[in-house]
């Protein structure tokens, strides 16, 4: 299985900004109720399971032709029993302001904000083969120790790497994969050989 390395989102600065603002409000509301962890997790479920699983629901949330009241009724019916009241209220506020289309960006902003508050960072790890628990624990503890932060791992498998691993934290990449080393070696040998070729061309040829 080769998983294409893809970025999550098309850059939409408006949505990103909006998501950040709503997420900040949601998290402080949840924090004062003491349920930040729960609310963020539930928001994740909402986006990953319900919205991703139902195109109809997604379309309904995004549609401007469905009135706010109607959306509030839908939210009450579907989520009131399952989700924490803070989240349900928050969704209703979003519905009232016609912002339900942006739930996904609120979710990613909330994840980020919450991680940041808890002193956590996300490290994406790409390896050629699946990690076992021992190795995973080792990586996690080593990274936590160096970064002085709680590290959450996000794993992907990419056989193209041949071996080794690539760790990405934020925009910084630590690459010790075999593929990268082979690339570098080939570049180095190529340029080194070209230089030698110019310096002592005669020794390379037999007459």
């Amino acid at each position, binding site marked *: 299985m080769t998983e294409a390395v893809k970025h999550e989102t098309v850059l939409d600065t408006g949505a990103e900004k909006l998501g950040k603002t709503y997420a900040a409000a949601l998290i402080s509301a949840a924090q004062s109720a003491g349920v930040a962890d729960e609310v963020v997790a539930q928001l994740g479920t909402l986006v990953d399971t319900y919205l991703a699983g139902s195109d109809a629901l997604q379309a309904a949330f995004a549609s401007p032709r469905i009135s706010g009241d109607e959306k509030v009724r839908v939210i009450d019916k579907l989520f009131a029993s399952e989700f924490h009241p803070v989240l349900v209220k928050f969704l209703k506020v979003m519905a009232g302001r016609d912002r339900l289309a942006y739930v996904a960006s609120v979710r990613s902003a909330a994840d980020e904000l919450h991680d940041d508050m808890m002193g956590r960072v996300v490290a994406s790890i790409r390896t050629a083969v699946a990690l076992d628990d021992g190795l995973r624990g080792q990586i996690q503890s080593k990274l936590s120790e160096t970064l002085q932060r709680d590290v959450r791992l996000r794993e992907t498998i990419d056989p193209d790497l041949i071996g080794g691993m690539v760790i990405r934290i934020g925009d910084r990449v630590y690459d010790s994969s075999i593929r990268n080393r082979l690339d*570098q070696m080939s570049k180095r040998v190529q340029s080194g050989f070209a230089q030698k070729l110019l310096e002592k061309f005669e020794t390379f*040829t037999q*007459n």
Partner: protein
Amino acid sequence: MKFSSDEIASVLQAEIEQFDSKIDVREVGTVLEVGDGIARVYGLSGVMAGEMVEFPNGAIGLAFNLEENSVGVIILGDYLSIQEGDEVKALGTLLSVPCGDAVVGRVLDPLGNPLDGKGPVQAETTRPVEIIAAGVAERQPVTEPMQTGIKAVDAMTPIGRGQRELIIGDRKTGKTAVAIDAIINQKGKDVKCFYVAVGQKDSSVAGIINALEKNGAMDYTTVIVAGASAPAPLQYVAPYAGTAMAEHFMFGGGHALIVYDDLSKQATAYRQMSLLMRRPPGREAYPGDVFYCHSRLLERSAKLSDELGGGSLTSLPIIETLEGEVSAYIPTNVISITDGQIYLQPDLFFAGQRPAMNAGISVSRVGGAAQVKAMKKVAGGLRLDLAAFRALEAFAQLGTDLDPETQKQLDRGYRMVELLKQPQYQPMSVAEQVISLYAGTRGFLDDVDVKKVPEFEKELLQFVKDKHPETLKLLEDKLDLSDEVSESIESAINSFKSGWRG
């Protein structure tokens, strides 16, 4: 010829053994959109303005716009195989190019990659493409001459080492020819030359390289090409890259000459990039900082102080005007930046006066101090006389009767105009120029038929070379018109005229 595989294998083995692998730490981003030589990148949060980035296909980019959520990158290479979602790697250094003796005699692209098929450029040093020019304390006034070998230029708008002299004119008026002659004339003078072709047809660049080779000028010349088919970002950086290569020699205490052919195309490329980056357009849709784009480039030409080795970088920027419109935006900008301009006019060109320099509005603001004394004495009032002649000529066309004094002035003028004509690729030494102009300005040509002037000049110089080499020698040693030198020149001319059949 056979290759010895053992030898090759042992070199490769040595290279591999020396290779030590470290963990590669890099800052990355992802491509959001790409097109027209520009990529918008998400991430790269720690990138510097002007930092190099690398795309997966090996193309180099330059962080150009740092915005709140994304980075605008100009792609210096193939952008057609870059895709949305590609990983972009910051290289942590500013854009630099190879420099030193390895680039001399080569034809390179603006990143220093060879285009001449002569193998890789094995430069030991590189220089950043964009640096801030030398400051006030690091410079000294321009005093040394930079001979172009063109009579009209050396006599009327002399250029000094470290000067910036603009060559401006419409298309097909011989702008490039002036610059190429100046390069050819640097042969044996220990001046490294750089010809930066921006947005030119590849066929004309090939023609220029050919001409330089034929005249033996490629031994000390580097050609940097970003042709008309090169992406706009490459055309934009080409002049800076060429300057960086030339500066290496200037800071090493040597002398360099750089020709930017031409800056109007560079401004157009910069305009394209800026508009694609959504920078606000100004006059003629150029961005607000197009003046700075040229001023920071031309400021880098300098004559360094003696403490810094006294090296110099002379530049000859070229600007193409449309229908003689020198008051357009880019021409006025560059005119105000440079230390003078050589204005080439189409009507003069088609009237057969080549180089087609308009003496009236061509000036050199600092070169006078750099002119050799002999030339200064012989050509002192030439520019103004010629300008006056042009005015008089227009008046005389009305067919009025002229007094003998005016007629004499006109006759002298016609002969001087003939004398200042010069064929392409035939630069003249200072001594030859002085003798020619001496004959003209001191009235030795007054009794020669106007049509025969070029012939007279040619044969006179040949005669002096053959029969009076001591005159040339004396002039080259003194470079001044002392009585002794004048007498020697006059006697040479007189003895030639006695045998002249015209």
